């Protein structure tokens, strides 16, 4: 038997994919949505509407400012109630547009299908992707059109469609592959046309045999020459650099980007959104969210208008249990804990996991006993225990030499640590200090 494709390092957290068999449900429209004008990496969008404006689904309410930025659109029809800073799931308050639902569900006239979309030039396709406000839907939310615009010196020969979904609990990509494989593959064709890349790999972990079979079948039905490859289920199989290594054997250079080795990685959800953006001219106004975890009474996969509050989704999932302790946006390995359930679903919200009180408690960190589990687990082949020691001693330059900036914050080291050292926290802090020190040391421009 062939050796399963994978990378070195990584961990095996319990999978808990309890929603894997549940079809995606439409969530009832929320009474109001809060749409932050920054849902992506890069510059925030500028508001295009005022309080009292009437908006329809797909109307642009925020204009992109700069190249690394995307616009935002109304996800329900109704009236703008406020344009003000609101709580954001990534922390702090961000300028947001609050829309009250009028219950009519009217769609903007700009949403108009274009059956001849494949005749468009790559530039036109890219422009439509940008206009639709697309940002990576796997979680990191990098503006999609930027990824689709590699410089001519860095040709892309391999497109990897990421359906690994290695985070425990999350099943939104899994369900999407089962329910909308044709839309995903149509999106892949668009990306292929934009980039002109020959090889297309659809990467799925082997714990989703049904998704593998569905994608394989659809690929052959459509007569596409895409490789649907099974990867070993191991966290973080879906991390960009690890996926590229496993799929092609290439290593993204330190501090470099996938395009440096001729690769590009897009999430399956992004591929589907690309299809909708160019073929239906439909902006990104909704996404699939897995609402799950022991703290949720009835876990579900939901199709949700962006800006819907977590609380609305919980209400639709039978509410939270008495025992609910921690609300996480994203998966339990890399997600971000929330102190309020009033935060909205954004473009990068792949799931909401609610843990029980017991699981939520943070053990008191102890001293490192040098067991080397973190070293064996690190998918970047760092020595996390040494880096955390250097960060604690404020030796940031030395920590950088040890690869602090190469850390992808996947959390494998913290997961396996018997001393419960908060590695990811220390890595983030160390990176922040390195950037601060480098900025302070850089010559000041007048």
């Amino acid at each position, binding site marked *: 038997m062939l050796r399963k494709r994978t990378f070195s390092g990584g961990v095996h957290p319990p999978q808990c994919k309890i929603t894997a068999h549940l079809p995606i449900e439409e969530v009832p429209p929320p009474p109001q949505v809060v749409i932050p004008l920054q849902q992506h990496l890069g510059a925030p969008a500028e508001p295009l509407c005022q309080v009292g404006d009437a908006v329809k689904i797909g109307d642009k309410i925020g204009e992109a400012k700069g190249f690394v930025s995307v616009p935002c659109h109304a996800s329900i029809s109704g009236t703008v109630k406020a344009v003000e800073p609101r709580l954001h799931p990534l922390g702090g308050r961000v300028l947001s547009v609050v829309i009250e639902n009028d219950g009519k569900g009217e769609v903007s006239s700009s949403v108009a299908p274009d059956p001849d979309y494949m005749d468009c030039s790559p530039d036109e396709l890219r422009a439509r992707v940008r206009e639709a406000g697309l940002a990576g839907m796997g979680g990191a939310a990098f503006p999609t059109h930027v990824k689709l615009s590699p410089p001519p010196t860095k040709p892309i020969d391999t497109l990897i469609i990421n359906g690994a979904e290695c985070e425990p609990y999350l099943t939104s990509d899994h369900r999407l592959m089962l329910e909308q494989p044709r839309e995903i593959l149509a999106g892949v064709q668009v990306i292929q046309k934009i980039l002109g890349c020959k090889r297309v790999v659809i990467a799925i972990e082997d714990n989703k045999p049904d998704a593998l079979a569905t994608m394989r079948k659809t690929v052959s039905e459509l007569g596409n020459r895409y490789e649907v490859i099974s990867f070993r289920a191991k966290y973080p199989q879906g991390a960009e650099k690890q996926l590229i290594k496993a799929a092609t054997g290439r290593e993204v250079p330190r501090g470099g980007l996938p395009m440096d080795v001729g690769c590009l990685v897009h999430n399956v959800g992004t591929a589907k959104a690309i299809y909708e953006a160019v073929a239906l001219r439909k902006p990104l106004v909704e996404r699939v969210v897995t609402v799950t975890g022991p703290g949720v009474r009835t876990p579900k996969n939901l199709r949700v208008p962006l800006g819907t509050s977590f609380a609305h989704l919980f209400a639709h999932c039978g509410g939270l249990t008495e025992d609910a302790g921690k609300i996480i946006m994203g998966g339990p*390995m890399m997600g971000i804990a929330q102190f309020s359930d009033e935060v909205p679903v954004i473009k990068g919200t792949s799931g909401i996991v609610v843990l029980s009180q017991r*699981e939520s408690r*943070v053990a008191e960190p102890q001293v490192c006993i040098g067991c080397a589990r973190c070293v064996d687990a690190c998918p970047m082949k760092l020595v996390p225990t*040494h880096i955390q020691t250097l960060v604690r001693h404020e030796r940031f330059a030395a920590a950088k030499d040890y*690869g602090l900036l190469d850390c992808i914050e996947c*959390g494998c080291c*913290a*997961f396996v640590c*018997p*001393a419960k050292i908060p590695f990811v926290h220390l890595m983030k802090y160390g990176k922040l200090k390195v950037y601060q020190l480098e900025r302070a040391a850089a010559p000041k421009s007048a």
Partner: protein
Amino acid sequence: MEKERFLSASPHLSDAESIPKIMYGVVLSLLPAAVGAVYFFGLKALWIMLVASAAAMASEAAVQAIMRKKITVADGSALVTGILLAFNVPASVPLWLPAIGAVFGTVVGKHAFGGLGYNPMNPALLGRAFMLASWPTSMTVFTVAPRGGSLCGIDPATISALQIDAVTQATPLKLLKVARGVLAHPSAADPTSYASYAKAMGALYDSYGNLFWGRVGGCIGETSAFLLLVGALFLLYKRYIGWKIPVSYLGTVALLSWAFAGTDGLFSGKPLFHLLSGGVMLGAFYMATDMVTSPVTFRGRLLFGAGCGVITMVIRLIGGYPEGVCYSILLMNLTVPLLDRHTRPRILGEKK
């Protein structure tokens, strides 16, 4: 929202392992050899283990109380030190000796450096080195023969046929050391003793079974390779130790003893004999693999084990002691920061 929610940095899941779990796992893995020690050397062995463990735990609690630190004696690490130290003394020692060794190992070897996680050297081995230096006679004269066997490991019936005194007094490694001295210079030795030593060596090499099961003289916890391997398999299964250090340690010992430890020139040695005798098994699986005092990198661990193997064999073959496990590991402990620094793995994407 009315209910308070927990907040923390990712990841929000954690493996079930903890430091106490690992330490008590090690204690569990030592139980077969501990039971074996009592079987082979009698109740005295039990007392030695109890005294050493109690002394290690009591001194840890006392140091932490005096320094107004959190008392962590329940985490099991002091217990591990106590048992391992007890394993490293002969059954004939007075009971105050392991007590003093355990206190020294815990206080000087561990807490003088900041406690668990900060000690550069294995506390149990440091305690043993201290006892060896201060009370050499008590530590190196073996007088208690194991149940069902003899001090040197040769079957009692065979010994009486051999008619040499040295055989009845020595442990296998000591016998080998003396015999090699005689056999390596046939012209200088008187023919009678040459012949009897040659016969003794033959009998020694025929007694692998005794060495393997533990019917041989030595420190109470190190004699039975079998019982130590049972515990080691458990540790490997639970991933509390890795294969790198034991394999490189034992491999180096095997290679060097095959090459240099024979009496008929190069490559006439018996690797199995060196692997089974003395404290190599105990050292390779339980002491060199001590998490705190061994490297964390892949190549670092291989080099560490190989270094232990080289020093062990240098001491056994050239040094003044018949046994070199303790000092080899202590010396290699001191190289750990250096090994770790120079064996950092190549970061993914780093230029080769």
